[in-house]
């Protein structure tokens, strides 16, 4: 089943098994909780922005391999980027995972590993959860309070 291998690529299995940035940030400037009511996946996303630059991102939660790997890859990809760059990448990533599988899409490096969800329409939400949570966190004007 080649499409299963497209979905569960090595990079995804690796990030599922050993998610990067799988932790909380003590004093985040932005925080949001993502929830997929269909499957019960939950994701807490912590973001630290200094000026216009994302200096740190981390996440916690439970989810399938796709949602976990996506969160892991996203947090790796965005560290050091500006908020505007992150938002632009959100759009590009969203385009990649929602384009019909028979059409070409741009190469987003490691993030392109998630393009395999195009063959599995119900799993697109899993790949997008972290990114939607990021958008919610960055859009929020109020900062999360520290404990």
């Amino acid at each position: 089943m080649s499409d299963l291998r497209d979905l569960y690529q090595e990079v995804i299995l690796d990030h599922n098994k050993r998610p990067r940035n799988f932790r909380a940030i003590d004093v985040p400037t932005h925080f949001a909780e993502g929830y997929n009511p269909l499957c019960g996946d939950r994701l807490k996303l912590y973001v630290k922005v200094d000026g216009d630059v994302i200096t740190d991102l981390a996440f916690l939660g439970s989810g399938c391999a796709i949602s976990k790997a996506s969160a892991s890859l996203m947090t790796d990809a965005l560290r050091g980027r500006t908020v505007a760059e992150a938002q632009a990448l959100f759009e590009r990533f969203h385009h990649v995972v929602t384009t019909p599988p028979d059409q070409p899409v741009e190469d987003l490096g490691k993030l392109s590993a998630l393009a395999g969800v195009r063959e599995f329409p119900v799993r697109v939400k899993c790949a997008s959860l972290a990114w939607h949570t990021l958008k919610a966190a960055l859009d929020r004007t109020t900062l999360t309070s520290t404990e």
Partner: protein
Amino acid sequence: MTTTTPLRSASASMTPPRGEAAVRRAFDVERVRADFPILRRQVHGHPLVYLDNAATPQKPQAVLDAIVSYYTEINANVHRGVHDLSERATTAFEAAREKVRGFFNAREAREIVFTRNATESINLVAWTFGRTNVGRDDEVVVTAMEHHSNLVPWQMLCEAAGARLRVAPIDDRGELLVDELERLLGPRTKLLAVTHMSNALGTVNAVEDIVRIAHAHGVPVLIDGSQAAYHMKVDVQALDCDFYAATGHKLYGPTGIGVLYGKAALLESMPPFMGGGDMIASVTLEKSTWNVLPYKFEAGTPHIAGAIGLGAAIDYITGIGFDAIGAHEAALLAYGTEALSSVPGVRLIGTARRKASVLSFVMEGVHPHDIGTIVDREGVAIRTGHHCAQPVMARFSVPATARASLAMYNTRGEIDTLVRALERVREVFA
């Protein structure tokens, strides 16, 4: 007097049922399968292995024929016209009600209210019986294994009434702690709402005992029969329950048709649910009076085709008989329990001594969603997620489970296919 077919525990032997009934109606699963046209189709290039029956089972040809025949031959609105078709449609619709009455052994057909589904049946009771009987500081008791449909309506009622919802706990096997439940019943308890069978765990509750205990405390009982009613004989008079909610699509019937059984005296005492046509006796611009049972609770044009389809489904089930269905499904559950337990890393969630047709499980290191996607590519349909029972998932500290659920047409070969598909999951996640 037994109210349900005896269920064997998961570890029971797989000997066929004895006795005359079994001889008279030898169960031939291949013949049953031939009655379900969808089972002939392929999914992702493999024969469909449909193990998502607790969500909705497939429909036999007889049900499909009944629906087509209604629309092609007698389609008309019911309880209205004097013309031939309306009379025929009304007769067929009421004949379906009579079949439902017989199926659940209600005393009278007017105790059978047609709804959209079990959820609506439960909401009907919450909004009518609940709104008139549950007040400030009163209590409604449910259990920790309820489907959201038998939990959320009571939360909403309690919130609106200023009442308190109390929850009877379950143990690590997924069995209801009946003693704890009894302790929750008191003078303030206005209703006990309990499932006959858990959709997420497969646990079959001893509802006959539970009703007796509740009645001893003067507490009326609503039973959610969504899962139980297609696996075992339900006799509402023997159970002596006050309400029994069921849904047509789980009885191998169409979606969009549900059933509420209620004791006539209780239904009589309750105000209507929704207002509209058919539920009235007389209407002036100022005021209306209500129709008799069960029409008082059936506002608007009902799902006529759905009721007729459900009638056909009931005929189909009773033609095979719960003795045969129960024995086949119990043997299959035992086989599946053993087969899944032998898959490395698989842990069953829900190991009640009395359970039916549900194999809920988790697999070490693999999220249920990934299991669902991979086995789907082998043609195997299972449910993954929280099964509309999030508190049950929380009780077992899992975010979700994979669930294979059985119906009368499933086979050991299909369980073997599931097990092979799970080996494929292991390969992918090795």
